[in-house]
């Protein structure tokens, strides 16, 4: 589709109200989804809840391939398909639902910078631990990723994914790092977030933004997911204001709606915060 056509379609989309049957697609919650995808999916769900936009969550084994960008989660709204948090934020904005409208230009730039930090550090660290740590890859990532597929396709797809991520790590210079260095990066990232948050309820004081959704998505998933070692969760736990931030968002946006169900519980996860 040409840019003009795409712009036209988004104009049309803006005119339509948010439908009741908007659906979010993600991999199978019980047997398939991995930490990084689970975190991204939770971030999008949190963002939509913050906006007050209802969305049904549908788990599909082929969610990754259904997505137009090849990444999960994606939402199907009307006849539009939008994937990943950034484009989804743009899309809801076109429909008149935005969280960051109250921010000035400086704050908005700061918010974008912190979102980049989370994507570059936390998400990359999650991918590194999943696919570049051989023990985690063998014990958790490959078996779970390939769970819906039959032999020999399961091995082919899992190794293909692992190579793809490792190539990406090579390109960004992470392949030389060891696990300790990655944990250290996560710790630094958390420290930066913790300092920015301070004692405020949200990153930009009273008003939640997409940054809050993104940080909650990652931290909550890290805290509640059982990996081969607890070290990643321990790094996050040492920042008490981040812990209470996660508690607060969970209480406000999830516990009030329904106690169990929409998110967070996978086979190897602890059901609530420590």
């Amino acid at each position, binding site marked *: *589709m040409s840019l003009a056509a795409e712009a036209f379609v988004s104009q049309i989309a803006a005119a339509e109200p948010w439908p009741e049957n908007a659906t979010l697609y993600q991999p199978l919650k019980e047997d398939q989804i991995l930490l990084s995808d689970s975190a991204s999916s939770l971030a999008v769900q949190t963002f939509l809840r913050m906006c007050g936009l209802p969305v049904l969550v549908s788990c599909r084994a082929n969610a990754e391939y*259904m997505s137009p960008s090849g990444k999960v989660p994606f939402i199907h709204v009307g006849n539009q398909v939008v994937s990943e948090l950034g484009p989804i934020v743009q899309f809801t904005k076109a429909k008149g639902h935005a969280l960051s409208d109250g921010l000035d230009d400086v704050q908005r730039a700061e918010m974008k910078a912190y979102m980049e930090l989370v994507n570059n550090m936390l998400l990359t660290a999650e991918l590194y631990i999943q696919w570049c740590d051989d023990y985690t890859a063998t014990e958790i990532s490959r078996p779970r990723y390939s769970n819906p597929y039959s032999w020999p*396709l399961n091995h082919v797809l899992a190794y293909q994914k692992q190579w793809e991520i490792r190539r990406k790590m090579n390109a960004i210079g992470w392949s030389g790092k060891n696990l300790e260095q990655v944990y250290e990066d996560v710790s630094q990232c958390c420290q930066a977030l913790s300092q920015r948050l301070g004692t405020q309820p949200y990153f930009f004081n009273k008003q939640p933004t997409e940054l809050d959704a993104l940080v909650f998505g990652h931290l909550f998933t890290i805290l509640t997911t059982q990996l081969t070692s607890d070290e990643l969760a321990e790094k996050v736990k040492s920042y008490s204001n981040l812990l209470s931030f996660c508690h607060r968002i969970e209480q406000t946006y999830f516990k009030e709606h329904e106690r169990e169900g929409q998110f967070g519980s996978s086979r190897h996860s602890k059901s609530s915060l420590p």
Partner: protein
Amino acid sequence: MGTVHARSVDSYPMYGRDMGVNTDDMEMMEAVQETKQEVLENKNVVVQHVNIEGLGRTKEDYLGYEISDVFTARNLVEVMRKSHEARQRLLRLGIFKDVEVVIDISEGANALPNGLDVTFEVTELKRLTGSYNTMVGNNEGSMVLGIKLPNIIGRGEKLTFQFSYGTKETSYGMSFFKPQSGYYERNFTLNLYKVTGQFPWSSLKETDRGVSTELSFPLWMTDHTLKWEGVWRELGCLARSASFAVREESGHTLKSALSHTMVVDTRNSAILPQRGALLRLNQELAGYTGGDASFLKEDVELQLNKPFIWGSVLSASLWGGMLFPLGRQPSSIADRFYLGGPTSVRGFGMYSIGPQSEGDYLGGEAYWAGGLHLYTPLPFRSNKGGLADLFKTHFFLNAGNLCNLNYGEGPRAHLQKLAECIRWSYGAGIMLRLGNIARLELNYCFPMGVQSGDRICDGVQFGAGIRFL
């Protein structure tokens, strides 16, 4: 045999093949001159030796079956006829560039007075042949490299590689073919491939990587093929605007299927036949040997041809098929049937009949299609032969239907479903035969019974293909 063999090997590079054959030919002529009188008196001859000259890598035992019949000849006419048949059999193996027959009287200590020696002088195909093509079409250019290794081990085995490097997609194929010694029609094929297809009528892109083994054999009047195929299929949307129904089918699946095909073909030509019938029955069972897809698929094709007045031919064909999903899973978009287009129900868009979603055709689990044709030679034709023989005019009447069945209902309900909303069309056109493999058609069509969602092609429609309704 061994000595003859050795002689031929060193004589070829020295004098060249043609020289050798010419001298032998002259000898043969003399021999025939001498014995001719006796043969006409029905005097028996005995074929004492049958030699094959010019063999390099071909194993002699492989050819023994093909030429042994020559020994049974009892007079010269029979010797010539059987030698000719043996020559045809040798050429059919696809391992020789040329085969010549030399019949000579026997010489040497054991030679009988009425003994004959038959010598087949063969020229083997090169060990390796290559081809290089460029193809342009569908907004895509590609370069195709082909390598063929005929008779690689010496008993008719053939190994072929094809590699296509395109601006959008790369595909390759490798196939190994092995006939049974002495029974060429009974053969085994092993294929390894990756192919990519784009189906704009469904906004679908499919990449298949697979392996298949095939066993072909004739049985009485019929030809059978047993096949196992394991394919890793990757489906994706052709464009971002693809319908969600197609998007839902995206991803990887594994299909492992056993299939059986039976063909009876008595037609005099595969393209534009004058007489004869074709029956093709195909059945596929997927899922029994593993994989994600499980279904049973039946497909039948029937064609009858009959000469009619003034050199015209009347032809009727009927296609039908059904797909039964086994287990809980619904059938995949890649397995269902499609109908419509210039090669099936004319007057409708390519595969643009039946269930669809937002303009993307999803295919159906059951279909039938029938066609009635009257082929006539071009009018105002001055003489027989020449270019005009490649053209024919035809009048056609096509009908068909494609739908999904609810398998909970009985066969009565199925028949009713297939009988309602029938699409049909009629028209006339001219067609061109391309060799004996393909044909082109230019038709003027009147589509009828159009249902909402069907894409039609009212008026002139151009078609090219190898299989026609």
